[in-house]
């Protein structure tokens, strides 16, 4: 499982796509400071992907369908957390799982 580093949004501006990387084959994880962060997942494949973020407190997982490239812009999803603490595991990470990773990129973004 690869560890992602959140990109801080700033007043100077960032290019989100430059901060996105290939999804890890065994999933990804990241740590955040504060609760204002979101994940962006883009799928350039001909098959849709499902992104799952497990709830660590027994609640409902976050499950998002990221559509095919042919169904853009639904192939590019930003995912926010209603209550981020519920998704932080015992080691302090939020985990991201993918139904498949081919042609999938991911980025984590943090508001100041």
């Amino acid at each position, binding site marked *: 499982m690869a560890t992602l580093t959140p990109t801080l949004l*700033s007043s*100077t*501006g960032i290019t989100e796509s430059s901060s996105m990387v290939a999804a890890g084959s065994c999933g990804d994880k990241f740590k955040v400071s504060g609760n204002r962060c979101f994940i962006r997942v883009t799928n350039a494949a001909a098959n849709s992907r499902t992104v799952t973020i497990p709830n660590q407190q027994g609640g409902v997982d976050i499950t998002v369908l990221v559509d095919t490239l042919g169904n853009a*812009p639904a192939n590019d999803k930003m*995912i926010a957390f209603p209550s981020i603490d519920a998704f932080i595991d015992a080691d302090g990470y939020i985990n991201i799982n993918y139904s498949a990773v081919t042609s999938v990129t991911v980025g984590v973004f943090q508001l100041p």
Partner: protein
Amino acid sequence: MTNQTIVPTPMVATGVAQESFIAQPSEATVLYTPSANKDFIVIGSSSGTVTVTVQAISPCNMPLACYQGAGAGKPNDHGLHNFIMSVTSTGTYVEKTFVIPYIDHYVDPSNLDVNGNAQVALACDAGMTTNGKIGIFEMP
């Protein structure tokens, strides 16, 4: 003068397709009601440089932080530093995502929304209204 009001798109756990909520501004001034520290803005260009400018309404005690936007730094008629953000395309569509710091200095009491809340006015240049796009998003 006609303004375009944009209601920030709520960021949700079910996912938001960013490009579905980014569009060419229909007017030269875009208004939105900010939520403290929860908003971010995306501007895009398909050709050339596009720029948005936010007039500083009240003095800022931290002027350096108030004009960190690319190309910013010139004070307005009141000696206050505006927030300026640009993005330049050299052929392909490009976007820039940013936050406006110290947003309280940019809310305009002369531009109230239907609930009486002061809005922020984003002045779009000609590039924005011809080759640009803008989207405003709000975190939970």
